[in-house]
């Protein structure tokens, strides 16, 4: 029964990745909009976009880490 509960918990924890996916799409959509407005700043804006992507991805990995913890730590 513990195995079933662990699997359910891990599956439920993975739902949080949906929000992170929307966030990453948001970051890159802003990149495309701003490069369309001002193409001469493309390199610097891309640097900012990668920074924003890494920070948003961190939240996604918090959720994934919780899923792995639930799945693997409890006896």
């Amino acid at each position, binding site marked *: 029964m513990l195995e079933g509960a662990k699997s359910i918990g891990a599956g439920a924890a993975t739902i949080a990745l949906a929000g992170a996916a929307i966030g990453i799409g948001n970051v890159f959509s802003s990149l495309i909009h701003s490069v369309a407005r001002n193409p001469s700043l493309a390199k610097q804006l891309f640097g900012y976009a990668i920074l924003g992507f*890494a920070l948003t*991805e*961190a939240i996604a*990995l*918090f959720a*994934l*880490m919780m899923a*792995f913890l639930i799945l693997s730590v409890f006896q």
Partner: protein
Amino acid sequence: MVNRSPDEVLRAAEAVHESSNEIAFLECLLNDLHINGVESEAFAETLFLAGQAPTIPSPLEQFSILPLIPMNIGHLYFSFTNPSLFMLLTLGLVLLLVHFVTKNGGGNSVPNAWQSLVELIYDFVPNPVNEQIGGLSGNVKQKFSPRISVTFTFSFFRNPQGMIPYSFTVTSHFLITLGLSFSIFIGITLVGFQRNGLHFLSFSLPAGVPLPLAPFLVLLELIPHCFRALSSGIRLFANMMAGHSSVKILSGFAWTMLCMNDLFYFIGDLGPLFIVLALTGPELGVAISQAHVSTISICIYLNDATNLHQ
């Protein structure tokens, strides 16, 4: 070995050493059990021979800390563990790289690949430092450069290290990244108090706030400020741990598929294998960008502490 009679335990233990009387072999078994305890090979073999199914290896097993040279002073644990070994190894490699690149009085004028890499790493640090802390020309504000450079090089070389098979990612342990971020946070707070005296506390009160609202705002601002100590550590740790665990799980799938010698599975063999290949590339990218992100966030916190809201 729970729920087994002492008889069965004895028989299993005897089956492990197979009634051999060689001192060296028995000593080896004893050392293994003594050092590694429940994770040792001898224990796993005993379980297997006693008919109890071996525990399914979890993907978190790659993060286990094994003491290589056990040194215990009383109750304190001073052993030389495998994180220590890998930290020293990376330190030695980085120093060797810098030494070989700057031999003969500073390298070539037209840099080769290694020299370009070292120059890139060296040039990366002054930009956030200048931009965040200010003072492009003055040497006063450059005194944080060595600290930030060391932090960046620490994560930059230790994050991708887990991609080498059978090696160990030092930064995928919460204790190590938490120690780093917490001590840097304490350092930043001390620097803030030293530079600005008690004015440092005015950082938590934005300008133009009506007076009755002020106490709530200060209290509310204190919480995110203290959370910064944890957030850098957690970000680095979660990225590394989740990335490596997911690569391990997927490669488990790929290996199981490769081992099933069936025609239908032959077509599906390539799927998980390509996924593992495809995942390794972004894994390296995440390792490097997380080093970048943690360095930039430390520069932002320093900027907040030294130039209050300017």
